[in-house]
């Protein structure tokens, strides 16, 4: 293999962005700089009012910055470029109901493509392509009021994918779903990341969703207080509490085990904790066997 460092192009570049509330002008985000390489899965967390959603709205051009510049896929965001930039960005919102425009699933998936004046044949073929991908082909003729929240979020994702964006934003897209549907949507995000074609930016309060991301940033009072891998950020108690995240059960358990004399590292998922425990057992039982054989000898 040739050893060439590939320089990833930037999907998003924010430089010194400040934006205030519409009337009072109180800063929602102040002096934020951020680089998101193409293909990355970035998780964003922070307490309510910390500016998470504002950040996504800035990236999609639903809001324009008061100061600083926003560059998306190499284009700088301004009044006249916003429509061009939006072609490369998909936005999945929190409410399954309020982002459903069409009277049927098919019509909703078509909405964005119709806005781009795609040919009807192209629209229809993409509807089927992406409906199949998200296993909603059976639902294409249904009215939204006969769908579950999870099904509606699938439709929302299909309608975004059908526009073939390079960046997909998820604004707490799983927060209003039941646990089963939440897992399903999280599974879809993982698949999207795995195909390596999309930059994913997900805003969430969920620890397991954050753990799936490659990198997370923590926002508090309109500034980035932490930027790094999910594990290294989430392990810090003071940062977690600034984002109003709880200590995950497994982390608490690891700390309790340590306190009770079982020296395993701090982990977040039960698979990892199990691995740690096995490593611990094999270490100790080897010593045990060795000790046993010593005493015999």
């Amino acid at each position, binding site marked *: 293999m040739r050893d060439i460092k590939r320089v990833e192009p930037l999907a998003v570049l924010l430089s010194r962005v400040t934006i205030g509330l519409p009337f009072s002008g109180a800063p929602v985000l102040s002096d934020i700089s951020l680089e998101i390489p193409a293909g990355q899965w970035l998780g964003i967390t922070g307490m309510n009012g910390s500016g998470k959603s504002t950040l996504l709205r800035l990236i999609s051009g639903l809001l324009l910055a008061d100061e600083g510049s926003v560059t998306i896929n190499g284009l700088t965001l301004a009044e006249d470029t916003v429509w061009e930039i939006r072609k490369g960005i998909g936005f999945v919102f929190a409410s399954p109901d309020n982002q459903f425009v069409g009277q049927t699933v098919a019509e909703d998936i078509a909405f964005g493509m119709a806005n781009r004046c795609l040919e*009807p044949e192209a*629209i229809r073929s993409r509807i089927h392509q992406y409906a199949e991908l998200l296993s909603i082909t059976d639902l294409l003729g249904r009215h939204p009021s006969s769908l579950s929240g999870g099904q509606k979020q699938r439709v929302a994702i299909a309608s975004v994918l059908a526009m073939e964006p390079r960046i997909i934003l998820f604004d707490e897209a799983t927060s209003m779903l039941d646990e089963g549907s939440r897992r399903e949507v999280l599974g879809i995000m993982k698949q999207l990341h795995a195909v390596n074609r999309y930059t994913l930016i997900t805003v969430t309060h969920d620890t397991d969703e954050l753990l799936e991301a490659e990198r997370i940033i923590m926002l508090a009072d309109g500034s980035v207080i932490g930027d790094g891998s999910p594990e290294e950020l989430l392990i810090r108690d003071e940062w977690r509490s600034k984002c109003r995240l709880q200590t995950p059960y497994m982390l608490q358990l690891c700390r309790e085990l340590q306190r009770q004399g079982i020296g395993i590292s701090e982990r977040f998922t039960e698979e990892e904790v199990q691995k740690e425990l096995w490593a611990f057992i094999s270490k100790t039982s080897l010593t045990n066997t060795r000790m046993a054989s010593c005493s015999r000898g």
Partner: protein
Amino acid sequence: MRTRMVFGRYIDRDSWIHRLDPRSKMTAMLLFMCAIFLTDSYAAVLVMLTFSLFMIKSTNIPLSYFARAVKPLLFIILFIVIFHLAFERGGARFIDVGPFAIYAGGLEKGLISAARMVIFVALAAMISFTTEPDRLTQGLGSMMKPLRAVGFHPEKAALMVGIALRFIPTIFEEAERIWKAQLSRGLDLTGKPLKQRARLILSLMVPVMAGAFRRAIELADSMEARGYRLGAPRSAIHTLSWKARDTVFLLLFLVPLASVVVISIN
């Protein structure tokens, strides 16, 4: 609530009527309305009924669906019949019921009005049963195109109608939930003076309105994020194309119209 709303529901079957251009169906409906308007004798009713049954048969949708579409109107239809029976005094006197007398003319008018209503509703249901809602709104937009000359935007109007139809059930559900929440907090309108009742009901509209606004704002964001731009050209899933069968379908509707006119003149 959803199950009760049969009207305005698309029923996916394979029939030539399903495949028609929505514009031909809507124009046909206009012709049919004229014919209904001119129906004023048993003979005319017979023609209209036969024609409607033929149309309904062609949709491959069971008659029971149409019956369910008519059902909510049963009360009004009954009222119309009784009204005619009670107040029309033409033709031979049939029977006396207390102070009222029933005349053949009253019976005829009552039955004909009822039949007109049933036939019209059934055929209107046929359009909504055989046309996907988005094609219907698209057809509507396309038919209103001539109005552009007077500053009307048919595409915007069609989208608006579509969104309204999409959100009506949602907002009704929300209102129902809010109502139930207040009931469980002891709200009891019985025995309260009318003025107080009106005030309470009005104040309960506040959260419903707030909810509708919240939905509207979020919907607007989602539409804009998907590239919707007010007044910009858009395409659609379907291309509306007027085929020979649409012309034939439209001409078919001239048959009942002509028959009714002839019957009415004679």
